[in-house]
């Protein structure tokens, strides 16, 4: 039983990281209809920037995030303006391919700036082990789960109550109609990228604090795809929940079925979900008969 609890607990931790990254994917997909293949690279880039801030100014966690998040939002805005905006009106395929190109560029630039060696990055979070029941946790793990909870709640409240969030849902439901009632769709797209980059930075810093800040951090973006698909591509809250589920599935597979299955169990879930329920657990069903 202890083994099971431990697996679930560590699964929740990695699942929280997936959930955060998946929220970033879903936010951009919801408002722009584009799967941002550069999300993982955004996570990586913002984590490295945060690391540089941390080593220069020696901040503790919350001030660090207070500096990192605005910088990340600025990066999101710049990327959207430079790379995505000029593609407005092009086919979705072209825009998605631009994000794929953007992904390899960001990855290369990040590795060239910070070098190929991994760093230890505590992000100003204490490192003494905390016990909850019989299960030991590092504070960084609890921060990660806490961040997911906060972000999910904030995301829900934002989309439910704020003017911008409601406008975002309007754009997601029908872009032309939203434009007709006076919503600036291009501004919504920019905001989606900014918020997505902000979530990416939280995910990146906390992931690096839990594991390591290494050049393969971008891969977490791809590993979060199962969560995005399971949650439904256009459901921000759904992807957060699905992230936790995927994290647990991965760990339970690893623990009970076989070594190394952790890496692909998520992708097996993708294939199954797409066959059975392509719009995911919480996504909106898109009826189209062929």
């Amino acid at each position, binding site marked *: 039983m202890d083994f099971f609890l431990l697996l679930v607990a560590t699964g929740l931790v990695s699942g929280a990281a997936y959930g955060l990254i998946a929220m970033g994917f879903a936010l951009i997909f919801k408002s722009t209809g584009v799967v941002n293949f550069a999300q993982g690279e955004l996570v990586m880039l913002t984590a490295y920037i945060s690391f540089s801030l941390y080593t220069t100014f020696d901040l503790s966690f919350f001030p660090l995030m207070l500096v990192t998040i605005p910088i990340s939002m600025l990066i999101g805005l710049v990327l959207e303006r430079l790379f995505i905006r000029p593609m407005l009106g092009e086919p979705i395929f072209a825009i998605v*391919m*631009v994000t*794929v*190109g953007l992904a*390899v*560029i960001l990855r290369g630039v990040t590795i060239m700036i910070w070098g190929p060696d991994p760093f230890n990055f505590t992000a100003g979070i204490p490192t003494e082990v905390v016990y909850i029941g019989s299960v030991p946790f590092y504070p960084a793990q609890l921060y990660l789960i806490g961040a997911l909870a906060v972000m999910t709640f904030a995301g829900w409240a934002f989309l439910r109550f704020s003017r911008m969030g409601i406008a975002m849902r309007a754009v997601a439901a029908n872009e032309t109609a939203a434009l007709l009632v006076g919503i600036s769709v291009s501004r919504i797209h920019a905001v989606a990228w900014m918020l997505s980059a902000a979530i990416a930075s939280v995910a990146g810093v906390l992931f690096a604090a839990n594991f390591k800040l290494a050049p393969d951090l971008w891969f977490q973006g791809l590993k979060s795809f199962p969560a995005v698909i399971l949650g439904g591509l256009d459901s921000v809250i759904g992807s957060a929940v699905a992230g936790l589920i995927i994290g647990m599935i991965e760990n339970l597979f690893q623990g009970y079925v076989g070594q190394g299955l952790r890496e*692909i169990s998520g*992708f097996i879930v993708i294939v199954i979900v*797409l066959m059975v329920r392509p719009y995911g657990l919480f996504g909106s069903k898109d009826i*189209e008969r062929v």
Partner: protein
Amino acid sequence: MRTGHFKERTGQLVALSDSKVVWSFVALLFALALVAPFVLGNYQVTLLVSALIAIVGAVGLNMLTGTTGLISLGQAGFLAVGAYTNAILMMDFGWPVWLSLPAAGVVAALISILVGVPSLRLKGLYLAITTLAFAFIINHVILYAEWLTHGPNGIFVSGAKLFGFDIQKGKPLYYTALAVAAIVVFAALNIQRSRIGRAWMAIRDHDIAARVMGVDLVRYKLYAFMVSSFIVGIAGALISLQIRFVNIDVFALILSIEALAIIILGGLGSIAGAILGAIFLSLLPEAIRLFFDTFSDTNSSFYTTYVYEIRGITYGVVIIAFLRLKPEGLIGLWRDIRKYWSNWPLAY
């Protein structure tokens, strides 16, 4: 000068080309390709072999992504299947290379059904994600099925003999790759002008309309998957012959992105474009290396440290630049030049 095309028989509509000029140019190019290894040095021939293999792979991907409109991010997976099938059949089962090379294509095509069937209900982005997932699953299976694939140890591939020549180096390898590329290009051109090819284009342009016109979507999408993977599998087998050591690290995600960069650069849906793109993108890293070499030693050590990153950035820049500035690709550029030339001095 021709002022226009006047087709009088239906046969002319589907002919590969009714222009004698085009055929003579193709013949001239082929003749040049035949004598190239006698003129060029060993290193240049090796580069040409890589370009030829890239042509085979790009033509394969183009069938799926360019002609049928199904985005695949799993090319690295199919290349790996082809390379490993060829290596295992040759080294562990002792098959001759003329048998294992097509077998690599067949195995890749069979495995593509596994990906194709769950993907039939999907299109666009979802499909891209499934193929990506598939590539990871393939990599994992290869890494862990040690009894078959030797897992992380990799396989040395040697002793591939065809008509008594060792086709793994120098001129014999070049001519093998050239022959395979020529056959694949010719076959692809012919498939594209058949009923199957037209059905694929109909699916790409509007799948609901295609269904209404009587195109069986399930069947033709599966055909696209199988034909494309067959060709890509053969490209993988050629890679295994060229690099002589098959290891899972060769087939990283960047390879799938390189493949997409090639067909976007060349022009989606065009076989001539795929050829142009493959040649251009295989020679581009070389051009960059020369660029860095002309600077001092510090710069070339910078290049060797970050060779993968520089390569990745190059692909990214190529993808973004072409999508933004010339979505029709190099072949579109060529068409513009041709039109400008034949209409000169009029604007159009």
